[in-house]
């Protein structure tokens, strides 16, 4: 018994255990309440089912959350990802009319890169507080996207473009492969280069890291640029999935979901250590929660309510102070 509690204690120190635990609890709940939740079907050479839906619809969120993890790791934040996503989607769908597909995709991603550079420049070079710096693009971004689409919802019939969002590869949805590729690239970038270490160092203490010879400015610029690229990719996936670009509503509030995914994943908003794997589980958890609420037949409007309660509970459980106060109560009861 002592060994078990010891194991539990050492496990609870592992940050990644919390999002996995949350996801497991959610799935357990689904297993009991919704019998059909885990059923999968093989139709027309593709897998269908709730789990596949989660992976497919969650892909843009996963991609954006990966980028968000990097900026939050340096005690920053990027609240403009939703607007960046709208811009890149708008540019891509706008350019589909007359340009080859590869150029369209490149332009969408490049738009994200430019936005990321702009954010990075404001934060790292001019030294504006991250939240305010990205607030500018949050405000302007949707305006620019509307400018590109002339305030309308652009639609496209391009099959090849739609494949990016709706297509299937090896029976699995195509966006999932993009998300996996992005994760692998960023993960390799983090572990195989010094960037990850530098990012954690600079996020932990900027002054100390600059004395240690790290150039925080370059690190911050890189982090924001990667986030911008991620948002650009997500923008293309989302616009391809619905075969249209909506400047007003594309990716609305996705920045908030992404931040939640990062925090549930165990990365502290105060900077320092970051957990890419945790973020993936955090994003999957949020997407699963949405799907669960839909399949429960509850009104979609109550998703926000459930999300709020669950987020607070998950954050409280992660908080050491909360667990301590809980332990105190238990001791008092025992005495």
């Amino acid at each position, binding site marked *: 018994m002592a060994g078990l509690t010891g194991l539990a204690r050492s496990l609870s120190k592992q940050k990644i255990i919390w999002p996995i635990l949350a996801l497991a609890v959610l799935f357990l709940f689904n297993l009991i309440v919704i019998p059909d939740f885990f059923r999968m079907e093989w139709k027309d050479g593709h897998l269908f089912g709730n789990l596949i839906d989660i992976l497919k619809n969650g892909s843009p969120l996963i991609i954006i959350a990966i980028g968000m993890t990097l900026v939050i790791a340096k005690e920053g934040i990027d609240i403009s990802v939703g607007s960046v996503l709208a811009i890149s989607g708008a540019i891509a769908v706008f350019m589909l009319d007359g340009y080859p597909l590869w150029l369209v995709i490149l332009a969408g991603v490049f738009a994200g890169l430019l936005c990321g550079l702009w954010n990075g420049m404001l934060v790292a070079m001019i030294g504006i507080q991250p939240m305010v710096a990205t607030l500018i693009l949050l*405000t302007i971004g*949707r305006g620019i996207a509307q400018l590109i689409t002339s305030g309308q919802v652009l639609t496209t019939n391009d099959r090849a473009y739609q494949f990016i969002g709706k297509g299937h590869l090896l029976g699995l949805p195509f966006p999932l492969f993009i998300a996996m590729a992005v994760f692998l690239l960023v993960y390799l970038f983090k572990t195989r280069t010094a960037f990850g270490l530098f990012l954690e160092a600079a996020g932990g203490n900027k002054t100390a890291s600059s004395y240690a010879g790290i150039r925080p400015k370059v690190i911050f610029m890189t982090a924001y640029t990667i986030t911008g690229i991620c948002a650009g990719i997500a923008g293309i996936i989302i616009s391809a999935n619905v075969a249209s670009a909506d400047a007003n509503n594309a990716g609305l509030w996705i920045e908030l979901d992404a931040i939640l995914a990062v925090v549930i994943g165990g990365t502290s*908003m105060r900077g320092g250590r970051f957990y890419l794997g945790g973020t993936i589980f955090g994003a999957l958890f949020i997407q699963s929660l949405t799907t669960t609420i839909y399949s429960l037949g509850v009104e979609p409007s*109550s*998703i926000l309510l459930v999300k709020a309660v669950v987020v607070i509970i998950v954050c409280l459980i992660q908080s050491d102070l909360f667990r301590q106060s809980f332990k105190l109560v238990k001791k008092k009861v025992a005495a």
Partner: protein
Amino acid sequence: MKLISLKISHNNIIVLATLLLLFILYGSGAALYKGFFSMQVFLNLFIDNAYLIIVATGMAFVIIKGGIDLSVASVVALISMVSASLFQHGANALVVTIVALVIGTLFGAGQGYLIQRFQLHPWIVTLAGMFLARGISFLISTESIVISNSVYVKLSQYKIYLWGDHFITISVVIAIAVVIAALLIGRYSSFGRAVYAIGGSEKSAVLMGLPVARTTILVYTLSGLFSAIGGIVFTLYMLSGYSLHLMGMEMDAIASCVIGGILLTGGFGYLIGPTLGVLCTGIIQTIIMFQGTLSSWWTKITIGFLLFLFMAFQRIIVMRKEKNALPASKNKPKFENKVVNL
């Protein structure tokens, strides 16, 4: 003579810049468009933005303390929804108003408690609060509910005539009263001083023996209360409750604070700033309305550009301050740290 000595210093240059911008914007509007330079156009700025002034002023306290409150817009929507739904069930106007104030205050206090007691990040807590408030108003109804209560309708249509046929509404009076109250609280109460001190440096505030925990909870409570007052004013303005009211208004409130010269790192700013910031954005909207051919997204782009200008401006001032103060404080890592965090 000390009272009217208006020296331009680091402390007031940003707020003076906002004032200057206000004059330039209004002047260019007046020069460009016939009928722009009228008393009623100016008064309409207040009438249309009364709720935003109140909410942004509440937000200013939170930002000066060094926090953030993302839930304000949702709370306003929730108040409008609760009021409309209570009226539907035949409630009394006074009861509705009190219930609205209580809901806002409790909501803010709850958020403050979570942030302070468990040291959760204000972003996460108020984000959850934002979801929660929207979720509750969705639960009440997804449709828009029109308010037909005779007292509210009368209050909303009541005009206070100033000169000739120029008028303001009761909302404007409430907004002005709230701003004056905020100014007094910020300047003359121990709570106000504690807010500025905590925003400057929380550790120093703890060491000074200031009631940090209590002030933190109070700041969010105050923001909740101001959101509730803003919600009542907004309900009067719209005479309807709708769960999708004011999506994204929390960012407008934050932007108004920034344009009004409140540093988002906390500890600095005048509480009149948000009002000036709201007026600036209001004038831009009016100009675009007078222009007629410009589309609404130009409002967003212009406000974003202004945000950028002001932030760059604030940054230049802070950098000049650093330069001036650096020789004296070369051996103070504390100061350097603060600057780096900006």
